[in-house]
């Protein structure tokens, strides 16, 4: 019916409302530091996210966990301020300052009310350039990290993912845990931490996103004061490219659990792959849409086999993956794996129709603005846009890029990417009738 079609078409194309509404400004400070800014004076606060290229994947062998320990201890005393004094000043002024080490990047965030922004940016400068790494806080954070490593060793999901990555990336930094092992964390010295900060954090590998109650001019001043003292360039922030080695192996890690955790995956597109968006749409249909994907429908909805089931694209800087998981009772692991593989094959064979494509595209475009509900969340998106080189007009273009994906694109990328026989499968639990197959 023509009227209904017009209305539906309007909904599909009307979706990029956020694109027009969020104004992203490129700010270059007097000292040449770039930040992407969304000005918003609704609340007297601002949020900044920043990321340095090069993360835990670069931890030296025997010292896995270095980047993570650095992230945990840079805010535990800097300049003249001891750990307690530094933390007290943050707390008393309601300033949030945190660092985080991911596989590919070393990031952080700063959140402050407008009237304490000078103090906040100054404390960031101190943490970046004058962290103390005193004995007590380093020992304390090491013991907290080790406590977490011990707990993770019995978390079936974590155990499964670690085993999957070890298989994919043997010999590459991606196979190491970002928080390391008990032994490797113990081996890290304050010299290692100082060296990390001095050599890995540079203006040349930095991306910044800011949202909130600040003007470009004021932001420029603060960027220079916090990041200006960093060295211009950093060497050694690039890990080698690596293809995931997925062979279709099955690994059972026996643990006395009522429910087995299944994790599965193989290679997938990187973020800059020409077919990335087609793959995104394809994955949404297959395994990504939470109440509407094929995996959800076949594994959970129809058969009640699992509460959690799904998969996503998992692009890294130096590799690409598709990874999924499911949790099901020990007796039903075999059945669950068989259904997942069946859906994998079905999609690889091109069994997908236009309606599914249209629905996936409407969801992907329509749901994007839903994440723009706080300064924090928007700042994080601004950094991701820069890290992934999506362009400052990405928010305007995204809906059209998704809209341009055709059924032929989806079928092509499904055939290229999906291979049920190559899925590496890790099961942690006591699965019945499932054995390891190297």
């Amino acid at each position, binding site marked *: 019916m023509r009227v209904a079609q017009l209305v539906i078409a309007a909904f599909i194309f009307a*979706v990029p*409302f956020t694109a027009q509404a969020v104004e992203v400004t490129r700010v270059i400070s007097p000292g040449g530091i770039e930040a992407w800014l969304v000005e918003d004076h609704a609340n007297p606060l601002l949020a900044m996210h920043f990321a340095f290229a090069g993360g835990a994947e670069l931890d030296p062998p025997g010292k896995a966990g270095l980047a993570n320990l650095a992230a945990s201890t840079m805010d535990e005393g800097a300049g003249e301020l001891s750990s307690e004094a530094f933390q007290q000043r943050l707390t008393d002024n309601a300033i949030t300052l945190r660092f985080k080490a991911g596989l590919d990047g070393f990031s952080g965030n700063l959140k402050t009310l407008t009237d304490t922004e000078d103090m906040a940016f100054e404390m960031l400068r101190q943490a970046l350039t004058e962290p103390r790494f005193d004995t007590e806080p380093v020992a304390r954070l090491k013991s907290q990290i080790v406590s977490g490593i011990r707990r993770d060793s019995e978390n079936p999901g974590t155990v499964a993912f670690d085993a999957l990555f070890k298989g994919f990336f043997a010999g590459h930094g991606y196979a190491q845990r970002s928080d390391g092992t008990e032994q490797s964390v113990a081996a890290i010295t304050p010299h290692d931490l100082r060296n990390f900060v001095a050599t890995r954090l540079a203006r040349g590998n930095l991306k910044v996103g800011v949202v909130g109650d600040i003007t470009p001019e004021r932001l420029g001043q603060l960027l220079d004061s916090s990041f200006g003292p960093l060295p211009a360039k950093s060497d050694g922030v690039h890990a080698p490219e690596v293809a995931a080695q997925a062979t279709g192996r099955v690994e059972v890690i026996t*643990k*006395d659990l009522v429910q087995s955790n299944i994790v599965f995956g193989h290679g997938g597109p990187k973020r800059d792959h020409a077919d990335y968006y087609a793959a995104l749409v394809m994955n949404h249909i297959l395994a990504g849409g939470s109440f509407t994907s094929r995996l959800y429908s076949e594994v959970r909805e129809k*058969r*009640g086999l*699992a509460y959690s089931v799904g998969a996503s694209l998992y692009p890294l800087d130096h590799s690409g993956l598709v990874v999924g998981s499911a949790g099901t009772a020990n007796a039903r692991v075999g059945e669950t794996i068989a259904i997942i593989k069946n859906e994998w094959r079905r999609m690889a064979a091109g069994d997908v129709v236009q309606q599914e494509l249209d629905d996936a595209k409407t969801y992907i475009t329509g749901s994007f*603005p839903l994440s723009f509900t706080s300064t924090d969340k928007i700042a994080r998106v601004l950094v991701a846009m820069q890290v992934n080189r999506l362009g400052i007009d990405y928010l305007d273009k995204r809906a059209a890029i998704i809209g341009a994906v055709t059924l032929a694109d989806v079928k092509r990328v499904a055939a290229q990417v999906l291979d049920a026989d190559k899925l590496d499968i890790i099961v942690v639990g006591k699965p019945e009738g499932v054995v390891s197959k190297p």
Partner: protein
Amino acid sequence: MTRTPQILVALLALASLAFAPTTVQAQSGVFNPQTFTLDNGMQVVVLANHRAPVVLHMVWYKAGSSDEPKGKSGVAHLLEHLMFKGTAKNPDGAFSRALAKHGGQENAFTNYDYTGYYQSVAADRLEMVMALEADRMTNLVLDAADVATERDVVLEERNQRIENNPGARLRIEAAQKLFPKDHPYGRPIIGWRPELAALTREDALAFYKSHYAPDNAILVVAGDVDVQDVKRLAQKHYGPIAAANAAPRTSLITDAAIEGGETILQDERVRQPGWSESVLQPSYTNGNVKRIAALEVLHEALGGGATSRLYRKLVIEQAVAVNAGTYYDSGARGEGRFMFHASPQPGVDLDTLAAAVHGEAQRLLDHGMMDGELARIKKRLVSAAVFARDEMKTGAWTIGAALAADHPISAVENWPEHIRAVSEQDVQDALAAVLAEPRRIVSKLLPTAGEGS
């Protein structure tokens, strides 16, 4: 696209206006909701926030696991799952598909005191989600096969959250000793396994019919909306649904005896032992705001983070704990709970840890707060209200949870004022009450014997 439909132009214009930076005048409350009640008794809360053209639409039912009939534990949560199975008008997942088609996201949750359903979607789709939610308030259709499958899903959820999780199993055992026998807070929200496994379609429908009605529900709409539009739409879609005039909820406040004492769970998978002590304390149901605010300040001072007294003493100075803190929940429909918790360093036994926690609490009681400590804590707590306003959803969740537990909106909106009014004596009195309260339970999570503490 070749042509731009008129509706697109209008939407874009509206969107860019909506997101234009504006300075909002400082208002006195935390979230400044607008509220009204429909003729059928449905409470409505509107939280206008024009930062992005999206809306969060929530319906909270004053029906949680604590409202379940005896022997039917888990039915409130199972019903939450079953609410996605369809109505005559929107059968078999049509609701979810329609929402996904419009780029919306949805989920639901069950708690002791309430069950809630929500959607996030573009602001101009508000009427669509309202129509769908109003439809399933009283028109749910269930067949036995649906119930059986979903029961299996919930059993897997239980496996994931509880059977596979020693900490969760310990919490369940502790709850049974902290509350009197057969008190609803003494059983897990997801239900006892045998009762859950035996739930039927009739059980689910009975709970649905007796609890899901407009006069037992709160509608919360937050985002790029106008209160007049919400009023009109709520009247149109929820207005026609008849009130149920059900019996009032039974009180969860009781002075019946509890078992108390200690509960220990040992499991070979425990790699980091843990200790906690939970004490019954007033909630907004049975407490006065002065005491509640004092308990919030006490929690912050004693164990609210890395600069708190417990963290400083146990984790930094004495290095007996990997972590230590407190927790206070004033939001329950029944009594509230104040909790001390700590994780020991290797080689430290849990009783030593407990003594250290109690010692630090006693030190505060004996010597009071330091100069400026109270002022600093109050300032930081009140700042939290500014940050809370930054995330569009926070007000909806906070106010929804308060009203669904039968607490007044003033509990949320006047919170900064209550905090500002707290005196050092109030904090001492609150601490004395926590330490003297006999209804308490100690929980210990340990590896199996022979593996060290």
